[in-house]
């Protein structure tokens, strides 16, 4: 029965900032285990949607459920289900990667011993051993991204949201990260990914939606986006250009 509950269900979500409509009546259903790509130009409403899901922003209208749990009415429980690696580095720049994971794990109520074990695994997984006690502000762009991912995963969320997780990451590290994300998804974790690297979306995602001017303008499986031998990028450009 629980398998029928989607990992994420968005119904008629609208988010306004004053008179400006950032997200305009969108609905989405993301099933458990999906690797979902959310595409769109800058300012299309991707990050706003993510902020509404995670509690950084308050929806103006509509309903969002994570694993059947309403993110507004039952926000505390809903937040235990989600991990976020945001586009911008929303951290204390004087904290180290180890501290960032420790504090976030603590905020999620994970006991010390369990938290310490998870942090060790994440530090090893993201090759942060040499940098675990280096202040965030001193890390390179790629290391910062890895620290953010570690922080997002420390409480082992069911739903992982990655907003531009490979921005500023070099090619080799990006491929390593892709392998890890694929491994996690194959292990059953639901992942939502936004990225301007469309080859990344094509490689990783099995479901895709395009948001533009706050509305969902295309949605389907990767195969549907790649029909007639097109790449995801070609389909994306066609859809966006048709909107102009």
């Amino acid at each position, binding site marked *: 029965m629980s398998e029928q509950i989607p990992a994420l269900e968005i119904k008629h979500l609208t988010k306004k900032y004053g008179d400006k409509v950032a997200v305009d009546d969108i609905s989405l259903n993301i099933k458990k285990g999906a690797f979902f790509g959310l595409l769109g130009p800058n300012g299309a409403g991707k990050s706003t949607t993510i902020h509404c899901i995670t509690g950084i*922003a308050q929806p103006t209208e509509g309903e969002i459920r994570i694993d059947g749990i309403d993110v507004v009415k039952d926000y*505390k429980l809903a937040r235990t289900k989600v991990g976020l690696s945001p586009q911008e580095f929303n951290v204390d720049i004087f904290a180290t990667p180890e501290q960032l994971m420790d504090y976030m794990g603590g905020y999620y109520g994970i006991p010390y011993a369990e938290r310490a074990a998870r942090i060790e695994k994440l530090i090893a997984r993201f090759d942060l051993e040499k940098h675990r006690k280096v202040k965030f502000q001193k890390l390179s762009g790629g290391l910062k991204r890895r620290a953010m991912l570690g922080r997002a995963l420390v409480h082992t969320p069911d739903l992982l949201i990655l907003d531009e997780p490979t921005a500023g990451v070099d090619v080799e590290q990006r491929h390593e990260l892709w392998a890890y994300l694929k491994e996690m998804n194959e292990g059953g974790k639901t992942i939502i990914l936004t990225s301007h690297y469309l080859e990344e979306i094509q490689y990783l995602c099995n479901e895709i939606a395009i948001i533009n001017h706050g509305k969902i303008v295309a949605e389907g499986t990767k195969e549907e986006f790649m029909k007639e031998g097109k790449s995801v990028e070609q389909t994306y450009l066609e859809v966006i250009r048709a909107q102009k």
Partner: protein
Amino acid sequence: MIMLNTIGLYTMFRREVKRTFRVVVQTLVAPVISATLYIFIFGTVIGTRIDDFAGVPYISFVFPGVLMLSIINASFASASSALYFMRFTRGIEEILIAPFSYVEMLIGFVGSAVTRALMVAFLILTVGLLFGAVNLVNPLMFVVYVAAISAIFAMLGIIVALWAESFEQLQVLNTFVITPLTYLGGIFYSVTFLPPLAATITHFNPFFYFADAVRSSMIGYSEANSAIGALVIFGLVVTLGILVTYLFRIGWKIRS
């Protein structure tokens, strides 16, 4: 229904204690040096030339107010700087996405600031006891009032941190409200020395009750009605607690 996020709250306290020790000269050493200087000036230089106040040496009368000033500064600075910095760096999003209720957010921020204020209070108290400047006649009352007064200024610090759009604005309340009302609240003088009108006005200054409560717990001397004092202090704790919880609930300046 999720239980109180105790590990989360402990993590918030732990993080603030770490931050306190990261700038230990500013947060703990400076108040202790100030308190020592007050003991030297009001105890040795001036105090020896002033008759006892209500049967106690002048330094014993003044010292509780000095301690109160220090805990006000510690709790206000702790809460306002921590939250404003988190807004500035968007680190506040770590708290917003975590499973904290709005009341837990209040407890976390206020408890962290009170923790720092209590550390300052006990260090200054130790200095006062070592130099024989003060007593502690009612330890429980002392801890309760120090915690309550610190909580008031932690919550004022939170409100200012939410409102402020620059580091300079963080100082506005401190400069134009807290400092004047503190100095006019009978820290350095007895309200009985004032003309009747000034004495009456002083009784409408909440800082008069803050200083009196701390003084009463330390040296057993009080100039205010203790029931009114308790009502003012705990009334402010409850009122500000409701206001700050409401501000967190609507996400004022922190949730878009």
